[in-house]
């Protein structure tokens, strides 16, 4: 309340000035002061958005004229500023006024300065360009002898301040920490807190001063310093263990009634929550005393704290009673709090959930969706093998009802967590239910879910559990259910779901006895030809078809597919199609390349390509040039650039450009080039005497510079 009194005192001089009689100017002044009032009344009287827009645009144009007019006094500017603030609040851009706000803060007297600062803090944000103009004003005001100006400057610093200019004001603010007036000390602490939030390394050296602030005799300063400590403790709790003594003393003072009632002591409790302390008797006793407080929010915090610190039975009892009262309360806000408290508690003390079983079940079907969601959150934490079916069922119901993306992502994540459980195991009781639920999850949340979820699911299927027959059953069921889903007409599945389906079908269709691989391929082909399927999904599909082709003895679907996709515009698809085409010609090779059910085996990769050694040796014996590593080519290229001309020869082998052999550099006057060509094998090209810079040997173009102009020349490919 002291702040409010202070603000009123600040406003009084302004009020007196406004009410002075003075004929014409007074009339103008009076009309100005009620302009905002009339504007607001005008807006509230309107009923349609269109009319409101018209009125505001009118107002904005007149304001624009007034602020840019040189004859506008600062007082008039102040009134305009207030109206500009109002217009921006309604959502209309008033950026022409920003610079004037800064000017007002700079030049005005006390009240005008206040309005200017207020306008600046509302209009601008931390990365705004005009903010730098304010820094000078702030520095000046921080050094002023007028306390109110100092306060205003500190307030603005704590609201918006450019990060780069922190060093300019930091020493001034540190000085203010020792000011005699507590309001200035408090504002200085808040400004430093803001600095800690945006640039923590710059305030590292003043932690000692924070400690002094914590023990300050004024309550407000202490409260402000608590915010800083809360944040610092969140980052590193062990560093501040020695301060628990002081926190507990503060808590005791609160309980003992020595501190005023409107003190924000729940921050203290939050600070204490950060400590998982062992048997700190004094603290425990104080917390038990706090339970007599009436404020519900504080009670909630106490309960939370009790469960975070080392458990002591009488405290736990009290907390449990408290939670009971919350959950059974008819007031819905308290029920919500009770459920939330149960979520914290549930893992440590499951008996509490049993006590309130009936209420929890009631809450599941509560008409309020927020309560339902909170109950689902609670249930998610107590999921085990026995109740998983029911809980997931409820979650799926909720999922189908909700339309918001955040809710879907959240719930899908939870269900997947419960079912797939980090690829280790699943709570699911039987295969059919598991696959059906996963299908439901994928069809609802397919496109928004976290990519780990389908990956984990596939890995679970691939690695399976210990029992081989169980695994086969699961996979068979999965394959069958996917085939049924694909048979349905006019249904669109999310892309991730299609990808999952295609992988499973590709890997495990061999388990089917009723349908042949050819039929599966036909279904996959139908999907491939569907336009709604994305190109990423198409690559999955064609990979699946490739896996199935060796099992399907002859299939014209595959021929059609190859024909279709070898001319596709998508290079990835074309690559796959060509691979399929070449492999298809050699069925035996394909069978050994794509064995059945070997997705979990590791591949041995020969990185040195040793299997090509025979081929290379043969080439070398027939006179082909040996391979020059990249750095050698670079060196040669650099040494040749000294000359203006060089002969080059591009040697091409099938469709690779292996390297460019650059030859002896030739200087201009000598018309006859002395060539030392390596004997060429195969197709080759000789180039003209141009200065050539060669780029990577894998591009299909090379760049030629002639007369200082670059040309890109396509290399001829045989």
């Amino acid at each position: 309340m002291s702040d409010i009194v202070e603000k009123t005192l600040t406003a009084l001089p302004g009020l007196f000035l406004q009410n002075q009689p003075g004929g014409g100017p007074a009339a103008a002044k009076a009309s100005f002061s009620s302009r905002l009032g009339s504007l607001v009344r005008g807006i509230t009287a309107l009923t349609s958005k269109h009319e409101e827009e018209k009125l505001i645009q009118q107002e904005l144009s007149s304001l624009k004229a007034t602020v840019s007019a040189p004859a506008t006094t600062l007082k008039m500017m102040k009134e305009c500023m207030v109206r500009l603030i109002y217009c921006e609040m309604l959502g209309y851009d008033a950026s022409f006024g920003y610079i004037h706000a800064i000017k007002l803060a700079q030049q005005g007297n006390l009240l005008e300065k206040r309005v200017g600062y207020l306008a600046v803090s509302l209009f601008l944000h931390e990365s705004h360009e005009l903010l730098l103009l304010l820094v000078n004003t702030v520095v000046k005001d921080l050094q002023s002898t007028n306390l109110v100006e100092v306060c205003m400057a500190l307030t603005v610093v704590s609201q918006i301040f450019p990060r780069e200019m922190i060093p300019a004001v930091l020493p001034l603010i540190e000085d203010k920490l020792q000011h005699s007036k507590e309001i200035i000390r408090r504002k200085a602490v808040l400004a430093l807190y803001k600095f800690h939030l945006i640039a923590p390394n710059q305030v590292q050296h003043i932690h000692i001063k924070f400690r002094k602030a914590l023990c300050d005799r004024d309550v407000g300063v202490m409260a402000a310093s608590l915010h800083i400590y809360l944040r610092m403790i969140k980052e590193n709790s062990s560093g501040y263990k020695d301060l628990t003594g002081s926190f507990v003393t503060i808590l005791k003072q609160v309980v003992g009634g020595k501190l005023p009632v409107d003190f924000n002591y729940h921050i203290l409790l939050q600070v204490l929550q950060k400590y998982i302390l062992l048997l700190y008797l004094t603290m425990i006793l104080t917390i038990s005393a706090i339970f007599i407080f009436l404020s519900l929010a504080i009670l909630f915090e106490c309960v939370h704290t009790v469960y975070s610190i080392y458990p002591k039975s009488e405290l736990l009892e009290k907390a449990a009673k408290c939670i009971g009262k919350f959950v059974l309360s008819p007031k819905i806000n308290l029920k919500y709090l009770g459920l939330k408290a149960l979520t914290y508690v549930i893992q440590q003390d499951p008996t509490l959930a049993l006590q309130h079983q009936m209420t929890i079940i009631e809450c599941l079907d509560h008409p309020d969706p927020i309560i339902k969601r909170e109950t689902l959150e609670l249930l998610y934490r107590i999921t085990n093998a026995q109740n998983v079916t029911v809980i997931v069922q409820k979650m799926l119901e909720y999922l189908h009802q909700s339309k918001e993306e955040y809710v879907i992502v959240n719930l899908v994540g939870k269900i997947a967590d419960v079912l797939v459980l980090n690829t280790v195991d699943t709570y699911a009781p039987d295969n059919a239910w598991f696959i059906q639920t996963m299908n439901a999850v994928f069809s609802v949340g397919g496109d928004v879910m976290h990519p780990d979820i389908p990956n984990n699911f596939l890995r679970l299927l691939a690695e399976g559990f210990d029992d081989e027959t169980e695994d086969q059953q699961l996979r068979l069921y999965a394959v069958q259910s996917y085939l049924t889903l694909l048979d349905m007409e006019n249904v669109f599945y999310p892309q991730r779901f299609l990808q999952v389906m295609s992988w499973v079908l590709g890997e495990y269709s061999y388990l089917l006895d009723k349908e042949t691989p050819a039929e599966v391929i036909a279904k996959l082909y139908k999907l491939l030809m569907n336009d709604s399927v994305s190109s990423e999904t198409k690559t999955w599909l064609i990979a699946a078809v490739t896996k199935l082709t060796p099992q399907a003895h002859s299939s014209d679907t595959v021929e059609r597919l190859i024909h279709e996709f070898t001319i596709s515009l998508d290079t990835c698809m074309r690559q796959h199609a060509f691979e399929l085409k070449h492999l298809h010609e050699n069925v035996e090779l394909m069978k050994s390349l794509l064995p059945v059910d070997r997705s979990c085996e590791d591949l041995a990769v020969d990185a040195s390509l040793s299997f090509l050694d025979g081929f290379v040796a043969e080439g070398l014996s027939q006179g082909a040039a040996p391979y020059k590593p990249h750095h050698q080519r670079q060196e040669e290229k650099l040494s040749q650039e000294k000359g203006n001309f060089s002969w080059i020869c591009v040697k091409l082998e099938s469709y690779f450009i292996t390297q460019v052999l650059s030859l002896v550099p030739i200087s201009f006057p000598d018309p006859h080039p002395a060539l030392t060509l390596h004997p060429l094998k195969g197709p080759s090209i000789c180039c003209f005497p141009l200065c050539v810079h060669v780029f990577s040997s894998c591009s299909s173009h090379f760049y030629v510079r002639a007369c200082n102009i670059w040309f890109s020349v396509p290399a001829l490919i045989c």
Partner: protein
Amino acid sequence: MIKFFLMVNKQGQTRLSKYYEHVDINKRTLLETEVIKSCLSRSNEQCSFIEYKDFKLIYRQYAALFIVVGVNDTENEMAIYEFIHNFVEVLDEYFSRVEPIDELPKICSALEPQQACFSPDSSFKGAASTTPIY
């Protein structure tokens, strides 16, 4: 952490808004309309804490005026709920002739207009919140 503080009437018109994190002007009106829609669609028997996108809304109705505060997950909802009431009591105390129906115009005509802008800031200082509001 409080993200924003709104006073909105039943027709969806914003009476007062203060943002504690930077939001673009055009996005603000969108945010406000969505927030108001979700608050207006609640009945009296439903709880005052709504989960909206990735943060929470805590609202309180006073006749035709809704006061909505947007907070992130770390905040104690009950504390904010009580804080909203604290704020209204402060306004009541300060501008003695306050009526809950569309208060702001009355406030403006009663006293200096900028006081109405000051008071959210100053009352926040004395009230409970995890992050100090200046």
